[in-house]
């Protein structure tokens, strides 16, 4: 346990330490000393601020992420299982995937207005791709003997999906979900750069525009912390869901 905590904090501690020392007498306007940033952190992120800016951001983030997960996995399974469907829609998906969300924001605004709906859609639009792609690949890579077994024993329909395809593709879907999580955070920020009046991304951009540089850095650090906590939660969930897989891989390694 102690070892695990050590693993988690060792490197960040060293890096932050180095940053603190190296930046201590920084004159540069845009990279102020870490000391100033930390002071700003305490001053800036009060409980009120968290409630007013971080909570709405998180709500949008969760809504967007969950929606992307559901759509991504569902679509990914369908596309992964059906070769012709895959051939048909792949170029269209690639087309949309290559369009930068910031460019699309105006278009999305046309259809979804300027409320939270728009921001959620931007998040979905941006972070669905790793989920979709990984699901497709995971589904395509299900062991043929496993598939044959399922067919032979009449494991078809929903059971085939929930008992065979999804668990088997599970590890790769998890890889996609994990990647999507950090992209979702990025898009949360991007979406809040447009037509927002609150939110973490909005606040950071606002700091940046008003040249409140230590505050801006403190926001970036908060984002990192947020990502870290979310990914920790994600890993817990992943470990539960993929226990068999971790065991399978660990079993023969350590014996």
């Amino acid at each position, binding site marked *: 346990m102690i070892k695990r905590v050590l693993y988690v904090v060792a490197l960040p501690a060293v890096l932050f330490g180095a940053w603190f020392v190296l930046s201590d007498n920084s004159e540069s306007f845009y990279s102020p000393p870490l000391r100033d940033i930390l002071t700003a952190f305490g001053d800036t992120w009060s409980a009120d601020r968290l409630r007013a800016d971080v909570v709405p951001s998180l709500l949008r983030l969760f809504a967007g992420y969950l929606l992307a997960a559901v759509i991504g996995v569902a679509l990914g399974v369908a596309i992964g299982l059906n070769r012709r469907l895959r051939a048909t829609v792949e170029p269209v998906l690639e087309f949309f995937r290559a369009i930068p969300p910031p460019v699309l924001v105006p278009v999305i605004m046309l259809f979804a207005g300027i409320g939270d709906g728009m921001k959620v859609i931007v998040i979905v639009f941006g972070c669905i791709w790793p989920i979709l792609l990984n699901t497709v690949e995971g589904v395509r890579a299900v062991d043929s003997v496993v598939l044959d077994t399922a067919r*032979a024993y009449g494991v078809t329909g929903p059971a085939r999906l929930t*008992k065979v395809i999804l668990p088997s593709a599970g590890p790769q879907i998890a890889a996609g979900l994990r990647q999507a999580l950090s992209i979702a955070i990025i898009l949360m920020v991007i979406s809040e750069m447009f037509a927002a009046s609150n939110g973490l991304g909005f606040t950071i951009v606002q700091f940046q525009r008003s040249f409140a540089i230590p505050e801006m850095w403190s926001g970036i650090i908060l984002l990192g912390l947020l990502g870290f906590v979310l990914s920790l939660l994600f890993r817990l969930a992943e470990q539960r869901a993929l226990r068999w897989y971790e*065991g399978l891989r660990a079993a023969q390694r350590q014996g």
Partner: protein
Amino acid sequence: MLEVKGLRKVYRSGSREVEALRDLTFTVDNGDMVCLVGPSGCGKTTLLRCISGLLDPTGGDVRVNGKAVDGPPPGMAVVFQEYGRSLFPWMSVRDNVELPLKQKKVARSRRRELVDEALDAVGLTGTESAYPWQLSGGMQQRVAIARAVAYEPQTLLMDEPFAAVDAQTRADLEDLVRSLWKRLNVTILFVTHDIDESVYLGQRVVMLSSSPTVVQDELIIDLPAERDQLHTRADPRFVELRTRVYEQIQLAKKAAR
């Protein structure tokens, strides 16, 4: 009734083309137990895959009870040669055996019973909650067998199901298969490399030639229906029959060289 008529299968991938089966014709009556022997790589697995509707033949016909097969027919269970890969690593042993029964909508209590019985019959009581990859090779293979047994199929296809178990367990499992066959009147097609096993188990032995594969010979095993490991194997008729099979296989291999 299981009819295989003029079955042909060619694998194509890129420039490589393998004629796994050239022209196979034979029938298995309902309630029959037929053993299939043939040199390694002659196409036994391919044949089983075609019969179970998992693979589309290049030519010819497979019919189960008069209906052309184009997908796994109901009431059929398959024990795959690649036992390790045919178990779902994300499920415990119990879940692996139980899943097909759930699909068959067997009631929960009956399911429990069937699973326990089957695991007991293959000697795996006590490992229900383990994952397949925590078991030895032979144990994994027995899980696959238990899964097929618990399913209570009308047709049972088994692809070298005892390859990874020890002699004693093998004998036990042979008797298990025979008792199952008698009790449930299942139609069984059994692929094996063990000539003694094929004679001991089967009512008929179908011998395949080596590639290009055709049916080399068929042999009716006219041993009494009541068989047991000690006496049957000592029966002079048994020895005679196994010699016949052995010779045919020798012939098959020679022809290929």
